């Protein structure tokens, strides 16, 4: 069979893959986008970021309603029509996916549904519903993403043991739900189910939830979880699971003691694994690192000069926006432009209640690496806007290099922290100093003021809180 010739083939249609395909097409390249699912968008759109945020927003009203009762506007008990909620969520996914399909067509990117398999460094075999097709390409970009890890001991073939994918399907509201793993996925989906009425128990093998997040930023989330969840059990391991009638029997161990409990459903959120298998990488020169991710350089090029890889499959932070940035770098590198993923600031947001967001250097990292930094904190209890929103449970902090007053990192916990962090990204990327932030007027009353006031705390002259120490001005 005569292979289809193309300049660039992109394997995987998630936020990395479609961004790469669109950008390359915009730059005048002939592009084929191979995706195994019928719909573009990958995990992010179909069973990740988008549906989870839809459900968090929908349930936020219930959480807000409970707070409202305290403020004197009292609502009755909400009635939950699960079918309608699911349909609303699905409609968002569908609309966005249609949008992507339209953008694909407009750019002349050829969409090929099927599984891609590398035959060698220059050719890809695609298993489509109409049989095999062969693509002969100049450059390939792998963006096949990752999937939820489901350890063999938990894989009972029972739909009551869910990963995030199934949990987002919202088949039912279980009376008792066990969430294994207190990372961001477990905490976000735990919040959704707890608000919908499940008794949620979260277990975490490590001593804190949201590992990797600075402890002062994780604390308000923990406080919420302690109140809204039935229980958060730290230092607790889940040994095995077994089907027990219409329930799941789970063996938990903590402090050297074991006990069995039964749950109606279990959500396993213990991490994600790269989709490197069955790609035919062994037929190319691309190599994997010791964790099973594809090895790439700063231009996103694998050890095979014709093949680039981006997104979750190359490891690092498994985030959609990281994949999209890497897509740009890879395409520019292919075009021979100067582009590099070196020193790119990648923000992270956890959409719990309250939200947590950070970028650049974290306080924990600074401590671990022995970097001398000064941390300026502004508590939201001192923010007028936070008070009017009835959300004083927040904190904004800046991680500052004392010698230059440069902002190396920003961390925020609080309502809408995800929307606030972008200013921090700009500050860190621009090499801004705390003075730059303090001197830029922020509108009152907004939550964004907390960034300016944190910078003022650094100098010792905040308006809405009191700082003991005054900083000696730089020479």
């Amino acid at each position, binding site marked *: 069979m005569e292979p289809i010739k193309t300049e660039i083939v992109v394997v995987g249609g998630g936020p990395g893959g479609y961004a790469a395909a669109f950008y390359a097409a915009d*730059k*005048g390249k002939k592009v084929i986008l191979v995706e195994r699912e019928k719909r573009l968008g990958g995990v992010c759109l179909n069973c990740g970021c988008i549906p989870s945020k839809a459900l968090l927003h929908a349930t936020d009203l219930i959480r807000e309603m409970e707070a409202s009762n305290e403020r004197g506007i009292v609502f009755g008990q909400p009635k939950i029509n699960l079918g309608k909620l699911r349909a609303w969520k699905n409609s968002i996914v569908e609309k966005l996916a249609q949008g992507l399909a339209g953008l694909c067509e407009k750019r002349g990117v050829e969409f090929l549904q099927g599984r891609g398999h590398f035959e060698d460094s220059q050719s890809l075999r695609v298993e489509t519903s109409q049989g095999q097709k062969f693509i002969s390409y100049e450059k390939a970009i792998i963006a096949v993403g990752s999937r939820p890890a489901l350890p063999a001991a938990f894989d009972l073939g029972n739909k009551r043991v869910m990963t995030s994918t199934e949990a987002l399907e919202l088949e039912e509201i279980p009376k008792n739900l066990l969430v294994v793993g207190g990372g961001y996925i477990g905490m976000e989906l735990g919040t959704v189910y707890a608000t919908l009425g499940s008794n949620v128990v979260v277990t975490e093998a490590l001593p804190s939830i949201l590992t990797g997040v600075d402890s002062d930023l994780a604390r308000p989330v923990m406080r919420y979880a302690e109140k809204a969840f039935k229980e958060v059990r730290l230092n607790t391991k889940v040994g095995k699971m077994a089907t027990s009638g219409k329930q799941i029997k789970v063996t938990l161990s903590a402090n050297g003691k074991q006990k069995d409990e039964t749950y109606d459903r279990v959500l396993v959120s213990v991490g994600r694994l790269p989709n490197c298998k069955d790609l035919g990488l062994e037929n190319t*020169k691309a*190599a994997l690192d010791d964790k099973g991710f594809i090895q790439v*350089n700063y*231009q996103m090029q694998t*050890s095979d*000069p014709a093949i680039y890889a981006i997104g979750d499959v190359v490891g690092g932070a498994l985030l959609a926006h990281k994949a999209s940035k890497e897509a740009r770098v890879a395409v520019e*590198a292919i*075009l*021979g*432009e*100067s*582009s*590099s993923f*070196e*020193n790119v600031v990648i923000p992270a947001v956890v959409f719990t209640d309250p939200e947590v967001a950070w970028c650049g*250097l974290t306080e924990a990292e*600074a401590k671990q*690496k022995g*970097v*001398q*930094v000064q941390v300026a904190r502004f508590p939201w209890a001192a923010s007028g806007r936070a008070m009017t929103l009835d959300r004083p449970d927040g904190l904004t902090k800046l991680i500052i*290099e*004392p*010698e*230059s*007053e*440069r902002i*190396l990192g920003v961390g925020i916990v609080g309502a809408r922290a995800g929307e606030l962090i972008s200013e921090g990204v700009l500050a860190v*990327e*621009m*090499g*801004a*100093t705390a*003075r*730059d932030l303090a001197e830029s007027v922020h509108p009152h009353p907004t939550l964004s003021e907390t960034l300016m006031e944190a910078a003022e705390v650094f100098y010792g002259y905040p308006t809405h809180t009191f700082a003991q120490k005054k900083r000696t001005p730089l020479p």
Partner: protein
Amino acid sequence: MDVRVPRLAEGVESATVANILVSAGDRIEKDQVILELETEKAVGPIPSPAAGQVAKIHVKPGDEVNVGQPLITLTQEGAVEKAPPAEKKAPPAGEPKTTRQAPAPEPQKLAQAAEIQPSQYQYESASGFPLPASPSVRKIARELGIDLARVKGTERGGRIGVGDLKSYVEQLQRRAAAPALEKPAAAAPTSVDFSRWGVVTKKPLSSLRRTIGQRMVESWSTIPHVTQFEEVDITNVTKLRKEYGPSWAKKGKHLTLTPFVLKAVVAALKKYPVFNSSLDETTGEVVFKNYFHIGVAVDTEAGLIVPVLRDVDKKRLADLSQELNDLVERTRKRKVSLEELQGGSFTISNQGGIGGGHFTPIINKPEVAVLGIGRSTLKPVVKDGKIEARPMLPVCLSYDHRVMDGADAVRFMTDLVGMLENFPEQELKG
């Protein structure tokens, strides 16, 4: 559209124009080689990204060019010209336009020039965090091939602005224009008129030969070479080749001696990592490599080229054999990429195919050792008190005496000989 100097390879920012294969007015095809660029390692062909007519050639042989610099201008007919992707928007206000026409000299040269300047600046980070500059300034610097760590930022917090970059570039140009402080030259070469004694013909050295020459002089004059000689009884390897050769040949694989040597060398390198190191002459550090990329000297029509086999330790003998044959084949046709010529940690030079006994190979700097192999011959060997005819293979190891001593070399060679004489059959299976 302009055809510009592409990214040549990791860490290679500049090259010299070796040959120009087209002339102004020529009609050329897409992928037709327009010129050859020579980096410190090799000569690489630059294919045209599109078909068209050569409107202008911006460079001449011998020119030093940087990544992103225009080489030729191509007029494309018929097709509507797309906005060329490499064409950047007009540089931001303040950026000197002159840098486009006369690109800044390559960073290394600048660094050398800067050494003689009292005000040599190098950014030092208090936090270990990368230097402060906005993404747009960093992008311009990347395009111009400028190391921002040498640019002093004058904005608050030491941040580098476009203005800082501009004054740095201007400074460089002034410096480049100033008469260079050359090292005192060695005795000036003199020309001898050989035609006084008979008829002669003259042919210029090819650029590849010049590159080889420069590198040999550099290695020979800076590294104290010592060469260790040994002989290996390859009865066992010969037997294995006879045993496995025919079945491999049916699969189209040619089982030569070199893959055996590659495997044995890697085993010895693992045991004696100093032979897989480099000496950083600027810091006085020995850099040990945790990878085993082995260069293999290939005799081509144009001269010696050394392509590199990656991760030899991780590959099966069968795969290695095939990869080697493919690499040698492509090298002879000069179809290897620049990337494939870089990153070697040790080199093997097998002359056995042509003949050869012991010789003294020159180290492929910045490596610290090289293994030479001659042709095996039957020699009388005393075994268990009796004289037997055995195929003996001459091997010779040149090493950098600054980094290791004779005792290290003897240990390395003893292990290498031992492994080759008792080559594990297991390696050929599976």
